[in-house]
């Protein structure tokens, strides 16, 4: 894909919506010196006749990259890629420039003037397409058993489903006989045991099936590898580690309940928790008399309350069946709907089980032998008599228990104590098949039946992967490539990656190059932009491509115009929404959509300034809660912060770069943002073009490429939820000053390099050239000379003359 004349450009008139606002023939004229193989204006490339015409051109001229200047790529790209797939054009080979929403509808300029802007954006797209690399997906094998870790009950359902379909599995379980599993079940699913059909049969089948290997749950030392080839290291009692290999991992994790503190309510003999009650039931120790189940603790959430209410109902049913002398009552808060069917209620009535709700605003009061509550029916306080009072257990935080798994897999704790597979939210077709399976009530409190269903579903997912692999269709789109030569194995990418796409390495294996699991990778690019050694490449979306785009666009921008980076979610959506709503903003901003602001390499920002861009605006999602790439927007914040510091060091204005946060549904805010930044920069002169400033900008750019700076940027992420600062800094000012020190030093190093490339210089001469006091330079120069980055070429008037070192 290196031949430039294989790019086809198709411009859309959009039935006059674009052609009436942008002079399209003029755009073609502007583009006449750019490299392309075909350029044509269609009234509607997206309609059937347009697609047909496009296909003909692609086949006739052998085009392999397509640029469409029309409307939103979010909405229309799928249409083009599905239609053009028959002539061998794939998703990444299509580039769309949104002329309609970024130029035609939102600006009021003359069509000729807008044609210039449109042409600039298109040439940016061309520059990016030019650097597109061929793209080979990798076929994966899927051999070996499925590893079911975590010790949850859903694992049994998964193992049975797998065994029935002839797939081996290794199940790590806490209890090693069916009876023991049953006995321990009430710790995770109180009240469920006897109401889940063939549960005993399920366990027996799993334990006897030769395809399932049930082994005791052992602490996980590490989980490495990716889909089709996982390695799990298990720590043995003697401290050694054994490794188990498997094709897939199913994480079955349940939320346990710990005993509630009943001592504040009453003595242990009369007041107990659901779990205790079940143990008493097992022992056949059922007291006759009135048993009241009090569903309390709203702090654990409604799901937990519903779960407790159902568990209470089940336990009471169990009790009355065995001993009709028992009179149970379930007292539940009125804001919880009991998930019981009509038949359940009939059964409850037949057995004399009371189901009574209380209004949650008035806390029920426990007395000796009585309990008062306010009924929602008449708002009167009623009393219920009890001999035994039962309260639900406290749901434990699964994150604490599953620490060892969470360290290795992309599963994260959520607010509210449950675990979630990943924070990131994508279009389903952005990711290949699901390859990491997470089941069990740790993902959200639910019923045993539901959990078993989840296990079965996970097993089906694994089976479909195996089926795909058998047909040779299990392919990973290689999204991220790590250059083994450049990678130093620092592991920053693994820490930062939100999707689990960068594989872990064994603990203690030292700095080894990273591998990627492209089945999990979302192509967000935060890792690539963070890598200190620039070893990671997001294929088809490389930093080089973005750099080329910025260069091409800025070459055609006028002096007063600025660049705008918009993230693919909040930023881009609100920008396009502004067009849909008919809002207008000045045409002095050139929008470049990126996946996430976090995927913008720091050197891109400095590159833009080096190319003479007057200012930059970035628009992303509101930090953390709506960022689709976890902390992407926070990563970007730090890069902008560094850029501002460097601009200030170079004597330029910090306000040339600004970031804004906007939600998907806020086009007005976006427009205000653009206007405000353009206003702020209006009276600012363009960047001076003299040699001195250019040398400074060059040094800033070089600084952004320096591993030390990138390392500091990567490790000192500002996460709004965090109160701790990296390293030995203990407050915000401290952390910022450390960063400034590093930037200052590396900036000076870059400037010295720049000065020495032209001629060897002595420290006083350098000081004159750089306009810095000699005493600031001497320690840095001594350091640089020591590690050979510069060499002493000779001596003059007692001063060494430095020149560039080798390499």
């Amino acid at each position, binding site marked *: 894909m290196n031949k430039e004349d294989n790019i086809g450009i198709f411009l859309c008139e959009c039935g006059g919506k674009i052609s009436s606002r942008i002079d399209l023939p003029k755009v073609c004229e502007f583009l006449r010196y750019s490299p392309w193989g075909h350029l044509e204006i269609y*009234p509607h490339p997206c309609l*059937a*006749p347009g697609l047909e015409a496009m296909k003909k051109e692609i086949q006739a001229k052998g085009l392999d990259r397509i640029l469409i200047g029309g409307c939103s790529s979010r*909405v*229309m790209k799928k249409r083009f890629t599905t239609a053009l797939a028959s002539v061998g054009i794939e998703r990444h080979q299509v580039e769309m420039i949104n002329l309609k929403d970024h130029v035609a509808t939102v600006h009021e300029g003359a069509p000729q003037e807008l044609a210039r802007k449109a042409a600039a954006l298109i040439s940016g797209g061309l520059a990016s397409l030019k650097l597109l690399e061929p793209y080979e997906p990798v076929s994966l094998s899927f051999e070996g058993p499925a590893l079911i870790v975590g010790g949850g009950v859903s694992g049994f359902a998964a193992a049975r489903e797998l065994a029935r379909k002839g797939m081996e599995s290794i199940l790590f379980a806490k209890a090693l006989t069916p009876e023991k599993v049953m006995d321990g079940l009430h710790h995770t699913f109180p009240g469920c045991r006897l109401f889940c059909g063939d549960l005993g049969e399920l366990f027996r089948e799993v334990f006897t099936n030769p395809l399932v290997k049930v082994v005791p749950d052992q602490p996980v030392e590490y989980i490495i590898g990716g889909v089709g080839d996982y390695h799990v290291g298990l720590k043995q009692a003697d401290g050694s580690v054994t490794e188990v290999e498997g094709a897939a991992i199913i994480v079955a994790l349940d939320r346990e309940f710990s005993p509630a503190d009943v001592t504040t309510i009453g003595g242990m003999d009369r007041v107990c928790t659901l779990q205790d009650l079940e143990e008493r039931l097992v022992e056949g120790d059922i007291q006759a008399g009135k048993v009241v189940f009090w569903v309390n603790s709203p702090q654990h959430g409604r799901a937990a309350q519903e779960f407790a209410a159902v568990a209470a109902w089940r336990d009471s049913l169990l009790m009355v069946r065995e001993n009709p002398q028992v009179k149970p009552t379930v007292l539940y808060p009125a804001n919880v709907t009991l998930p019981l069917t009509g038949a359940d209620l009939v059964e409850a009535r037949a057995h004399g089980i009371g189901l009574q709700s209380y209004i949650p605003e008035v806390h029920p009061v426990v007395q000796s032998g009585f309990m008062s509550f306010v009924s929602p029916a008449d708002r009167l306080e009623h009393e219920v008599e009890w001999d035994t009072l039962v309260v639900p257990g406290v749901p434990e935080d699964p994150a604490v228990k599953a620490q060892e798994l969470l360290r290795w897999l992309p599963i994260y704790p959520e607010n509210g104590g449950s675990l979630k597979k990943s924070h990131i939210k994508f*279009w389903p077709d952005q990711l290949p098949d699901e390859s990491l399976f997470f089941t069990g009530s740790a993902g959200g409190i639910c019923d045993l039946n539901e959990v078993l269903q989840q296990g079965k579903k996970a097993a089906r997912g694994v089976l479909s992967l195996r089926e795909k692999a058998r047909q040779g269709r299990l392919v990973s789109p290689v999204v991220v490539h790590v250059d083994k030569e450049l990678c130093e194995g620092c592991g920053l990418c693994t820490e930062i990656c939100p999707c689990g796409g960068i594989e872990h390495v064994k603990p203690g294996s030292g700095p080894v190059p990273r591998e990627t699991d492209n089945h999990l990778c979302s192509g967000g690019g935060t890792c690539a932009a963070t890598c200190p050694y620039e070893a990671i490449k997001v294929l088809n979306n490389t930093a080089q491509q973005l750099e080329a785009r910025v260069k091409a666009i800025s070459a055609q921008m006028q002096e007063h115009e600025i660049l705008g980076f918009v993230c693919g*979610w909040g930023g881009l959506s609100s920008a396009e*929404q502004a067009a849909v709503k008919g809002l207008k903003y000045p045409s002095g901003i050139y929008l470049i959509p990126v996946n996430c602001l976090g995927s913008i390499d720091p050197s891109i920002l400095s590159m833009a300034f080096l190319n003479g861009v007057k200012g930059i605006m970035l628009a992303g999602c509101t930090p953390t809660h709506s960022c689709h790439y976890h902390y992407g927007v926070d990563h970007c914040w730090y890069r902008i912060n560094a850029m501002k510091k460097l601009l200030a060091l170079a004597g330029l204005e910090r306000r040339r770069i600004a970031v804004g946060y906007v939600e998907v*549904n806020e086009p007005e805010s976006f427009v205000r943002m653009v206007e405000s930044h353009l206003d702020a920069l209006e009276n600012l002169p363009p960047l001076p073009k003299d040699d001195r400033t250019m040398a400074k900008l060059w040094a800033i750019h070089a600084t952004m490429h320096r591993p030390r700076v990138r390392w500091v940027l990567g490790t000192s992420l500002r996460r709004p939820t965090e109160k701790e600062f990296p390293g030995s800094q203990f407050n915000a000012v401290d952390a910022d000053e450390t960063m400034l020190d590093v930037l200052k030093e590396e900036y000076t190093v870059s400037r010295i390099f720049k000065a020495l490339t032209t001629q060897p210089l002595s420290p006083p001469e350098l000081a004159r050239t750089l306009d810095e006091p000699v005493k600031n330079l001497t320690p840095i120069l001594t350091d640089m000379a020591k590690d050979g980055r510069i060499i002493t070429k000779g001596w003059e008037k007692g001063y060494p003359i430095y020149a560039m070192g080798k390499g």
Partner: protein
Amino acid sequence: MITFTIDGKEVQGQEDWTVLDVAKWHGIDIPTLCYHPAVEPYGACRLCVVEVDDGRRSRVVISCMYPIREGIKVLTDTPRINNVRRWIVQLLLDESPASPKMQELATKFGVTPSRFKKAGVDFACHLCGLCVRACHEVVGAQALTFGNRGLRKEITSPFHTGSKECLSCGTCLYVCPTGAMEQLFDKVGA
């Protein structure tokens, strides 16, 4: 190749193409509302009506879903068609008088809000289903759906509760022709 005429102009097309596809390609403007090239046609708004004469009789059909046939005569701008379209615009305008897209159509057809106007509604949803279709076909999620039936039919998230499927990508906002989605958007996501 299928040859037929639109407004007397001889045009050609392939099987499976619709009248609207060919007309737009040849620069003949047919107003549409519930049509979007990104999704399959649906035929909800009926604004794209044209008169089709197949040699036996002349009928008013929706062009977005009418497959082209050999020898048919399509008329896009007749008094009969304009009358139908004006009534459709009239009724839709009364539902969402503040929507820019509807205002544009109203000026084009010389229609003003009438006695049918719903009181206090500026951006009513026309139930054209573009958001539902885009969410399903373009995004691949199913965070939006039609709820209820008849007069109470509405756009909602499945089971009327916040949908975990919603990616808050804003595709539904982008395709919504009336701006009704803006009010709905925050209720859809979980």
